[in-house]
C-alpha cells in the first residue's frame, strides 16, 4: 500500500507503433495536491523537444478496480493537470488511483502513453504556505495578551497620543446641544461583517452614550437591514449605559436602501432637511463619501470622518473638519472608553508596528545585498 503525499514515477512508456515522430513524455509525476482539502491529485509531465506544437495530452484516472475515467484533454505544453480542481469531482481520499497520460497529435493519434504508480489523495489539516501568517498572528496576539495582562494587573500606565478628531466628538455633540439640532451618524455602506462597520458600531455606542447624556437626538441611517438591527441594539446599549434608557428613539435608527446611490440620496435628504449640527461618517465608504461630506459642509454641520479606505481618505480630509485616518479609526472606540484593557491593545499594535518597521529595514538592507530569502518568507500562498 502506498502512503504519504508524494509517490509517483513513470512506470511504462509506450511509443505508438507507426507514429511518424519520436515525441515522448518524461518526468510524469502524480502527487497529492498540497495544502488542499483533499480529493485532488496533481499530475505533471514534460514533453520531448520534437513534440508537435499542436499536440495534446489526454489524462485518465484508473481506479483500483480498473475503471478508467477521462479527466481532461489539454495542450501538451500545459505540463500539468489538477484532478479535482474547479468544482470537478476528484479521486476519493485515501484510495489508491493511478493515472494514464497519453500524448496525442492533432489527429488524435497516440504518440506516447505513460502510467503513473498508484497515489492517494489526502486532505491537509494545515496550509503550510501560510505558516508565516500564523507566526505573525501569534506574535501579535501574544503582544495583545501580554499588554491586556499588564493592564489587568494595574501596574502599567498607558500613554495614548491625543486624537484630535475623537476629542472633537464631544465638542460636536456639545454644539448640537447648544443649537438644538440632531447628530447624524453614518456607519458606512458595508455589511455588518466588515471590520470597519464593526469598528463604526463600537464608536456608535460611545456617541449614543454622549448624545443620551446631552439629550440630543441621534439619527443613524443604515444601508443594510442587518446593520440596522445591530445599530438599534448598540444605540439602546449606549443610552442605557448613560443611565438614560428613555433617550433611546427607535425612529432615529433608519433603514434607507440597499442601493448605493439611493442610500446616498436618502442621507443627503436627511442632511438638508434636518440640518444636523454634527455629522459623523465612520466606516467603509466608496463614491458617496465626498457627496455626503460636501452636502454636510453646505448644511453647515461640523463633520468628523473616519475610515481605513485609502481611496476615500483624501475626500474626507479635504471636506471634513476632522478625519480619523486608518488605524486611528480602529483605535477610536478604545480611546473613547478609557478602559485600560482596551487601551492596552493599542500599545500592542504600536509594538507590532515597531516590529514591522524593523522587518522593513532589514528586508531593504538584505534585498540591496542581493539576499531575497527574508523577503520570500513574507510571501503568502494563495
Amino acid at each position: 500500500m502506498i502512503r504519504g503525499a508524494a509517490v509517483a514515477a513513470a512506470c511504462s512508456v509506450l511509443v505508438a507503433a507507426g507514429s511518424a515522430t519520436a515525441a515522448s513524455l518524461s518526468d510524469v509525476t502524480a502527487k497529492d495536491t498540497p495544502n488542499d482539502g483533499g480529493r485532488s491529485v496533481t499530475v505533471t509531465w514534460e514533453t520531448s523537444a520534437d513534440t508537435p506544437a499542436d499536440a495534446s495530452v489526454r489524462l485518465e484516472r484508473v481506479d483500483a478496480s480498473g475503471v478508467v475515467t477521462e479527466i481532461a484533454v489539454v495542450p501538451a505544453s500545459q505540463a500539468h493537470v489538477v484532478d479535482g480542481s474547479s468544482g470537478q469531482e476528484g479521486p476519493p481520499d485515501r484510495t489508491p488511483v493511478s493515472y494514464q497520460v497519453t500524448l496525442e497529435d492533432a489527429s488524435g493519434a497516440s504518440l506516447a502513453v505513460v502510467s503513473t504508480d498508484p497515489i492517494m489523495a489526502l486532505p491537509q489539516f494545515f496550509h503550510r504556505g501560510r505558516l508565516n501568517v500564523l507566526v505573525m498572528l501569534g506574535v501579535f496576539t501574544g503582544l495583545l495578551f501580554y499588554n491586556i495582562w499588564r493592564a489587568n494587573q494595574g501596574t502599567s500606565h498607558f500613554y495614548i497620543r491625543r486624537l484630535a478628531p475623537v476629542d472633537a466628538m464631544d465638542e460636536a455633540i456639545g454644539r448640537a446641544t447648544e443649537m438644538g439640532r440632531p447628530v447624524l451618524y453614518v456607519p458606512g455602506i458595508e455589511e455588518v461583517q466588515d471590520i470597519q462597520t464593526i469598528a463604526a458600531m463600537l464608536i456608535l455606542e460611545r456617541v449614543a452614550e454622549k448624545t443620551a447624556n446631552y439629550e440630543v437626538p441621534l439619527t443613524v441611517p443604515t444601508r443594510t437591514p442587518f446593520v440596522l438591527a445591530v445599530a438599534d441594539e448598540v444605540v439602546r446599549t449606549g443610552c442605557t449605559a448613560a443611565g438614560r434608557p428613555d433617550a433611546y428613539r427607535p425612529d432615529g435608527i433608519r433603514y434607507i436602501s440597499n442601493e448605493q446611490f439611493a442610500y446616498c440620496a436618502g442621507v443627503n435628504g436627511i442632511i438638508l432637511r434636518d440640518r444636523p449640527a454634527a455629522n459623523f461618517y465612520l466606516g467603509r465608504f466608496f463614491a458617496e463619501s465626498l457627496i455626503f461630506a460636501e452636502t454636510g459642509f453646505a448644511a453647515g454641520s461640523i463633520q468628523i470622518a473616519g475610515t481605513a479606505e485609502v481611496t476615500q481618505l483624501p475626500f474626507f480630509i479635504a471636506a471634513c473638519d476632522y478625519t480619523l485616518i486608518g488605524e486611528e479609526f480602529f483605535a477610536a472606540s478604545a480611546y473613547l472608553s478609557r478602559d485600560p484593557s482596551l487601551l492596552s491593545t493599542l500599545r500592542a499594535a504600536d509594538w507590532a508596528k515597531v516590529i514591522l518597521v524593523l522587518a522593513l529595514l532589514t528586508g531593504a538592507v538584505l534585498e540591496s545585498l542581493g539576499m531575497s530569502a527574508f523577503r520570500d518568507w513574507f510571501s503568502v500562498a494563495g
Partner: protein
Amino acid sequence: MKRAVPWLLTFVAGALMINDFFVPHRTHAAITQELQQWGLIVVAFTYVLGMANVFDLHFKKIRRGSSEALYSIVLVGSMLGMAALGIFHDHQGEHSPFIWLYNTVYDPLSATMFALLAFFITSAAYRAFRARSTEAVLLLSAAILVMLGQVPVGAAIWGPDSFLGGFPGLKDWIMDVPNLAGKRAILMGAALGAISTGIRVILGLERAHLGGGK
C-alpha cells in the same frame, strides 16, 4: 448567561473563520461554508426588518401630515409599486414593466447622484488647495505637478524626454514614491488596527453589540 452565550457564539464563529484561512481540510471548510449560509439566511430575514422599519417611519410621517409627508407617500408608493410589478408581472425580460422602470427611472437617478461627484470634487478641491498653511502649500504644489503630468499640455510644456522626465516623470515619481509610501503606511496601520479590533470583539473586550457591560 444573557451575555455569555452571545459572546461564546461570537468567539466560536470568529475562531472558526480565522481557522478557515489556515485549515484547508474539507470538513472544516464545509462547517465554515455552512455557517456562512446561515449568515445569508439571517441576512435575508433582516430585509423584512428593514421593510418594516421603512413602513413604520413613513406611515408615521404620513399620518402626522408633516411637511415631509409627500416624500413619504412617493417613497412608499414607489416601493409598493415596484414590489407589485416584481411579484405579479414578468420581471426577467428587457421590456417587462419592472425592468423598464428600473432602467428608465432608477438608473438615471442613480447616475445623476454619481455625476454630482464632479461638482463636489471641484468645490472640495478649491477649499483644500487654498494655501493657508505649509501643508496646504505642499498639497497644492503636488496637486499642480500631478495634474500637469496627467494632461497633454503638461507634456507639451515639459516633455518626458526632458530632464527628470518632465511633468509626466515628476508625476510618476510623486505617485510611485511619496504617495505610495504614505498609502502603504496607512494600510499597514489599518491592518493592525483591524486585527486588534477583531481580537477585541472575539475575546469579548468590546461588547457593545451584546448589550455592553463587563
